[in-house]
């Protein structure tokens, strides 16, 4: 088995991994990035398709009772397939507390601390507020529904340039307009000397001696190799990597998997690994637009429809947006039933056909993202399989009921006829209600003020494991009520800046 020596090993190539890789490579460190999924050339490999074989090549899921996590595996992580919504987390997000009254975020990490790094992230991704004349039809119709009720609605912000609204954001932008990491961080990191190895899955982390004995080192040249990472290549081979620093950036699911598998070797690892996962409380609702309201369009326009309402953020802890759903998303993950339609069968047969025929233009779908507590858990079984679970408790059940009622109220007051949306598993069986389906899972290895409350400190360094960092969504301790990617990236920039400062590794040059 070969042994690769490097200064920094970054596990992952998504939002949490790309910033540390770039900044450390720019500062002169030898950086190797490991990506479990395949290499992606955004100008050749993305497709405008509904083919599940293509989608499942990159998009993965982890389901449990009442929840499903979606995440991507491939170069660039989720950045190739996300909706490119890029919003800063509202200040009140950082004030959330757990059931014991303790702050969820560690001291010193709040909106004002992240703002300079949001600035960097926005410049790198070319984030802009969508123009009035670019808002897709479904976003405009959603805004009209809010306007009718006297509610505010804002144009959202996106990491895209010259969007033509083809509607296939989530299968990858074939035009190169979406500012995925393939167009900025990753090529810049490679230009700075970083190496990227795709099809290579980090399996476990092993300390080389007692890493705590190296904690005093501040001179980068004197820092020894402290960890060895065992990895498996897609061609069946294995490899070992030895590094001074290991940065975990494989996402909320991926990072938890690696740390859980490493628990036998990282003896001082916090018991909180895999726990306290927040999932942004996504609740969905749909309705048929009444006569007089112009058509929406479920199939074209950017995947996130351009508008977000903060009207209920302070009162209910939620933001509300309209959603688009491509046919594979609708037919492959839900049963739709028109409320009050007495026909049986309801979700298939003529009743379903009648609904699907008007789905594109006359159905409006809206959803909330909310400040739900970190109540989900990922566990690693003896067979190596991950499982997820969600502690509904009375709070989450009540949140789902009140939020769904709020969404139905918005639709109902506008004269929309409600369409009941029931999510299904891979065999078509309906999940028990309530059900949370999200790509916004965060916090499986959260930052905290002490190992009694989390896995890593405010700098992202794993407690009692100097040189081992968590820089991705796994480190984010709470729901954000907005899409998570920009906050993950900004926090990763902050963590990278902290590493540079700690080891006097110089000042990054590009931004």
């Amino acid at each position, binding site marked *: 088995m070969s042994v690769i020596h490097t200064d920094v090993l970054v596990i992952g190539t998504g939002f949490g991994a790309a910033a540390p890789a770039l900044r450390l490579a720019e500062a002169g460190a030898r950086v190797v990035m490991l990506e479990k999924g395949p290499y992606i050339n955004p100008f050749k490999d993305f497709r405008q398709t509904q083919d599940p074989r293509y989608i*499942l090549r990159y998009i993965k899921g982890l389901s449990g009772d009442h929840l499903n996590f979606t995440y991507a595996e491939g170069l660039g992580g989720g950045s190739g397939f996300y909706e490119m919504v890029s919003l800063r987390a509202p200040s009140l997000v950082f004030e959330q507390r757990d059931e014991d009254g303790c702050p969820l975020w560690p001291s010193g990490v709040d909106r004002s601390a992240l703002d300079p790094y949001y600035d960097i992230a926005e410049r790198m991704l070319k984030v802009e507020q969508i123009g009035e004349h670019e*808002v897709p039809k479904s976003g405009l119709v959603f805004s009209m529904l809010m306007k009718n009720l006297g509610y505010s609605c*804002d*144009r*959202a912000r996106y990491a895209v340039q010259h969007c*033509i609204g083809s509607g296939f954001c989530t299968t990858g932008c074939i035009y190169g307009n979406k500012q995925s990491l393939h167009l900025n961080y990753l090529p810049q990191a490679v230009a700075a000397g970083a190496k990227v190895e795709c099809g290579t899955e980090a399996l476990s982390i092993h300390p080389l001696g007692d890493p705590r004995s190296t904690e005093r080192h501040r001179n980068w040249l004197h820092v020894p190799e402290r960890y060895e990472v065992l990895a498996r290549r897609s061609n069946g081979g294995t490899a070992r990597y030895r590094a001074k620093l290991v940065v975990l950036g494989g996402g909320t699911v991926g990072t938890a998997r690696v740390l859980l598998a490493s628990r036998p070797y990282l003896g001082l690892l916090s018991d909180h690994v895999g726990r306290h996962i927040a999932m942004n409380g996504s609740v969905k609702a749909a309705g048929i637009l009444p006569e007089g309201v112009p058509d929406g369009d479920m199939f074209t326009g950017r995947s996130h429809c351009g508008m977000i309402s903060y009207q209920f953020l302070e009162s209910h802890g939620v933001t509300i947006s309209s959603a688009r759903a491509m046919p594979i998303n609708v037919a492959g993950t839900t049963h739709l039933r028109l409320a009050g339609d007495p026909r049986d069968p309801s979700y298939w047969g003529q009743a379903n056909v009648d609904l699907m025929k008007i789905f594109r233009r006359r159905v409006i779908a809206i959803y909330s993202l909310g400040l739900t507590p970190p109540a989900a858990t990922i566990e690693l079984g003896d067979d190596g399989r991950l499982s997820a679970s969600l502690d509904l408790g009375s709070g989450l059940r009540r949140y789902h009921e009140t939020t769904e009622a709020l969404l139905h109220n918005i639709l109902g007051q506008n004269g929309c006829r409600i369409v009941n949306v029931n999510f299904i598993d891979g065999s078509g069986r309906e999940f028990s209600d309530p059900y949370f389906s999200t790509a916004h899972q965060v916090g499986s290895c959260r930052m905290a003020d002490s190992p009694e409350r989390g896995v890593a400190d405010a700098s992202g360094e794993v407690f009692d494991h100097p040189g081992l960092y968590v820089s991705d969504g796994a480190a984010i301790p709470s729901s954000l009520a907005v899409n998570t990617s920009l906050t993950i990236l900004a926090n990763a920039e902050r963590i990278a800046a902290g590493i540079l400062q700690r080891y006097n590794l110089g000042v990054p040059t590009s931004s």
Partner: protein
Amino acid sequence: MSVQGLTRRDVLRRLGVLTAGLASACTPLRIVLHDYPSAFDERDPAERVLRAFVLTVIPEAEVSDPNLARAFGDPDLHYAPYRGFFISDLCRRAEARTGEAAFERLSLAQRTAVVQDGLRADSTTARLYTGAILVAQASYYAGIYDDKRGCALIDFDGAYQFRGIEAITYPDPERFLSRPATPDGNWV
């Protein structure tokens, strides 16, 4: 694809997003894999039954669509190991209900009733039926075998066809836009 040599472990491993979990319920897997007439593995009669099934689930589906029943035998969608049993079960229930074993010869109302019988059966059989409905709806509405074709029934164009910005948005956004709560889209 033959299923005769598959072990339970093989089958469980093959279960994917569109049919995951089917094997975990109460009907013994040997029934799914072995106890059905082998004639249903023959392509043409099986194809006729499955096309009739899709036209039951989606009564206005295009009858001449060559891909109408393709997904049921697609190894990547993982329904293929259950295809033969499912066809035989449709025909068995058709005969029990109407005296006619050829499911495809029944009226729409009769076929609908047969499918509903399957959905009300034991939990594994019911999941085979919900899985089959899922395969039919997802493959047809999403047009998964032809990126450019889409699905005319639901006005889905398939891969993007540029029809000008007016096809994406409205020319008078001020008519729709509500008052903003932020200067730039970010909440403070």
